[in-house]
């Protein structure tokens, strides 16, 4: 019988890492970075985990399989006003005094739009018990839902 010396050994597997997940989070590969093959692969089959190369610009349609469908409403239209007779210029003269204006708050807007009408109604006694007017103006008839629709009709989606 041969006595086998049992020496405790530990093995290191170098193939386990090769089969594992590549962590490239420390090296963001976007846009023009990466090898030619990598960029080709990104173009055909973009990896969803890596950031795209749109740089914030939105697509003007959607993809149906391989074909791209353009939606005309999604094409941004730049509306630039007519600048004839416009007095403001790119630079400001050094002679101009330092203009300090306080912030224009919602309270100031209320004071301009609603306050005069309320004062007038109060003096003429046309206010109801809860404070609303007996002859509401267009602004006073406005509900939050209608106001939201009006704001959304412009096409902006920030509301």
């Amino acid at each position, binding site marked *: 019988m041969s006595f086998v010396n049992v020496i405790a050994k530990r093995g290191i597997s170098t193939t386990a890492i090769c089969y594992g997940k590549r962590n490239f*989070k*420390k090296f*963001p590969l976007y846009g023009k970075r990466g090898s030619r093959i990598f960029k080709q692969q990104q173009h055909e089959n973009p990896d969803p985990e890596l950031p795209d190369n749109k740089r914030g610009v939105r697509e003007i349609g959607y993809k149906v399989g391989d074909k791209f469908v353009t939606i005309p409403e999604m094409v941004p239209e730049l*509306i630039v*006003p007519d600048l004839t007779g416009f*007095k*403001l*210029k*790119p*630079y*400001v*003269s*050094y*002679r*101009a*005094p330092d*203009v300090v204006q306080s912030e*224009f708050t919602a309270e*100031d*807007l209320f004071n*301009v*739009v609603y306050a005069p009408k309320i004062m007038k109604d109060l003096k003429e006694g046309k206010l109801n018990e809860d404070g609303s007017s007996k002859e509401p103006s267009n*602004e006073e008839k*406005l509900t939050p839902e209608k106001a939201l*629709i*009006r*704001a*959304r*009709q*412009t*096409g*902006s*989606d920030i509301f």
Partner: protein
Amino acid sequence: MRLTQILLSRVGEWSKQYANLPDRYIKRAMEQVYWRNPKGIQYRPSTVIQRKKFRFTMNRPWSHQFYEQNAPGRLRKKVFVEPIKKWSFFRGDRVEVLVGKDKGKQGIVKYIVQERNWVIVEGLNCHLRRMKRGDESLDLYIQSEAPLLVTDQVALVDPSDLKATPIEWRYTESGESVRVSVRTGRIIPIPATAEETIDYKSKSTYKEQPKDTGANEVAEITFEPALKTFEMDIMESMGIKEDRIPKKTYWY
């Protein structure tokens, strides 16, 4: 306090005044960033390795010569500068030199280096620099002024008797802070050329250029508050009518 603010606060207010450059340009031209942490949630935010110790000289911090003197790797011994609470020397001030071979002479302040407490007086405290251009046998000598320390080597001149005085900042009856000569009590006014920059001699005499908006147009108030968003206002002014109602969207 952020390092960028520290950088800017190191540059003296009166050193920057004549050049009339925006602060962000000075900061950008001066900073030497060696490493900036990348953007990403895994990195510590706003971690920068940059040069913090600069050797301030006669060259302005945004110039190339300043960069050469403060090149990456160039370590200079620290220059100890007496901190002055309120800077009292302006361009165009009449001062008397108290040390050196021009001791007792009076001159006008031409250049200020606030970071080193330096002031250059026109034509005084000069020395000759030899400039040899290439292989020329004729030596070219240039006379250049040496800077003078504001604390010890220079004193403001009292306009009443034209002699050097120590000064103090005091308040007038109207609440204005002025320099007052300690010996006589006479107010030493701040010279008109203190306001001068490379762009104008004074703000009121600035010649308006074609691309400048006039002072009146800037101060005009044309805003009329109305119950509309910015986009609604534009649509009304351009005559765009929209009847479609957009479908409801949800934010998650």
